[in-house]
């Protein structure tokens, strides 16, 4: 009995150590936090258009179909890394993309899209970052899955990856489309 008691501190240590180690070993990023806005209506903002020939973003524009809303900026390195994935989504017509250009110089953003391609159906300009705060954005890039009713259903922090896309986002898109008919 008493020996088991002697082992107790070791046991407690092992439990605590395991609690802190497992997320590291499983590569879970401790910075990732669930959005509190999941299943809530996406914030409606009137965001001016970035490009002359492409509409901006009005409060009603997020409704109607399942879509991805991507916050990006030309000064943001990880945005560059995820851009080919967005281009591919656009080329395949997998899901409509809405861009929100976060705290950027318009000419820099336009040049950036010209260099890397423009996958977005609409691009709104969030010059002062206020819209991003309403979306709960920490930093670009962030991507939100918005359903046909205009509700946020999923939030992806950081650059999109093939894994996130294939394992989570695209299946959710299918599910939402099937669910809503």
């Amino acid at each position, binding site marked *: 009995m008493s020996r088991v008691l002697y082992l107790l501190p070791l046991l407690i240590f092992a439990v605590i150590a395991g609690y802190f180690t497992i997320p590291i070993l499983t590569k879970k990023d401790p910075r990732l936090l669930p959005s509190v806005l999941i299943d809530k209506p996406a914030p409606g903002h009137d965001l001016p258009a970035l490009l002359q020939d492409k509409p901006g973003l009005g409060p009603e524009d997020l409704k109607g179909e399942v879509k991805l809303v991507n916050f990006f900026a030309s000064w943001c*390195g990880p945005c*560059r*890394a995820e*851009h*080919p*994935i967005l*281009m*591919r989504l656009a080329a395949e017509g997998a899901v409509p993309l809405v861009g929100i250009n976060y705290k950027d110089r318009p000419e820099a953003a336009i040049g950036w899209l*010209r*260099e*890397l*391609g423009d996958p977005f159906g609409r691009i709104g300009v969030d010059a002062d970052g206020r819209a991003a705060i309403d979306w709960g954005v920490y930093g670009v890039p962030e991507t939100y899955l918005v359903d046909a009713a205009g509700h946020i259903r999923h939030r992806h922090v950081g650059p*999109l*990856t*093939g*894994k996130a*896309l*294939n394992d989570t986002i695209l299946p959710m898109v299918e599910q939402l489309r099937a669910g809503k008919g």
Partner: protein
Amino acid sequence: MVFWVVAGVLTFGTILLLLWPVLSAGGEDAAEREAGDEALAVYRDQLSELERDLEAGRLGEEEFEAARVEVQRRMLAASAEQGRGDGASPATIRKRRLAAAVLVIFLLPAGALLTYVGVGRPGLPDLPLAKRTDGAGTTRMAQQSQPSAQPQQPAGAAAQPGVAEMVAGLEEKLKANPEDADGWALLARSYMVTERYREAVTAYGRALAMVPDNIQLVAARGEALVLAADGMVPPAAVEDFRKVNMAQPQEPRSRYYLGLARSQAADPVGALKWWIALEADSPADAPWRALVTQRIEEVGAEAGIDVAALRAAERANRPASAAPQISRAPVPGPTEEDVKAAGEMSAEDRSAMIQSMVDRLATRLEQEPDDLDGWVRLARAYGVLGRTGEALKAHANAARLAPDDLQIQLDYARALFPPGTPESGITDEFAALVDHIRQIAPDSPDGLFYGGLVAATRGDAATAKELWGALLERMGPNAPARGMLERRIEALGG
């Protein structure tokens, strides 16, 4: 090496710290035992004293009995403590100590080593503070990813004091004589050495405006675009590499980067297709081979794809005799990409210099409208500048002057039917031109493709199928356009 010495010293120190209590416990124990003996002696004295007290009548029988039991119990407790409570003999205790020491001496370093082998990365280079910026890191990665056998360039202009002056001199010279394609190419290479990738892109564009068919330059600009984009493969670079790949299907750099573009677009299957074919075509001693193999393993592992099976399929797919097929004749086939690459060059060349050059050329051609070479150059220049309407007119003039020159006729066709045009945009003029091309070169892949396109839009599925089928036969088994063509044929229906 230093790392292992330091790690060894640290491990040794840790073992010492852990062994200390185990080993020194032996000495303590002896002292404890002695103290215990003393205590026993004291209790013993107390017992004799109690007996004397009883004899002298200072204690009653009951009191004596109670006191004696108390002292005896204390003796027992003391002796139990001496034996560590479980009555283990000194021999067993020694054995246990030995076992603990052995465990510490062997298990600790073994566990540390195993963990390190699993998690650690001994080959990881230092990342000095000066290098810790996004740009520096990715630039270096991009440089390492170059499958070409180019010697590693020293980083930064500072490393090469001569280069800065050379660049300045070249810039001067080109200001005076902007039509020097070799000069622009040299300047572009110098920019690459000094890591001014964006300027290198522009300079390569200048050179290419004058010699658009120089595949080496197209490949070099593609690479400059990649480096300017921090190792990402932007659409413009993809276009360049596709053009290279069309002209020289075996060229490794373009194949590597086209695979990289797929990988960056989260399409591991597409990336592996490019890379496994490239790996199979690469001689065992090719300098890029190790890199390609490594990327295949990485991407395969990340996506959970069995690359061994893909490799086997690739081997089974090609004739046993032609292992590294560097000598296989390139099979040029027209593709969407090819058409696109030919149609729109980089948009970065809008400089006053080219404008004036073009204007001069255009004025001269108004007076000498029979200068075929002039029209060809003007058409290309307009194409680069994005003045498509004027480019089309120049192409038409060139085509008028050289009715039997296949290349010029094809260029005209591409100008008439630029990439991205919906098929409804096919005009009678274009159809007539395609007929003409088919007459002068019945086997031309481009002619076959366009002929099929015209037939398909006119509802003549049989002819379209025949022409595209003939084209398909001419294509190599790995031609990137194959899939596109097969889809088109399928879309024609039964």
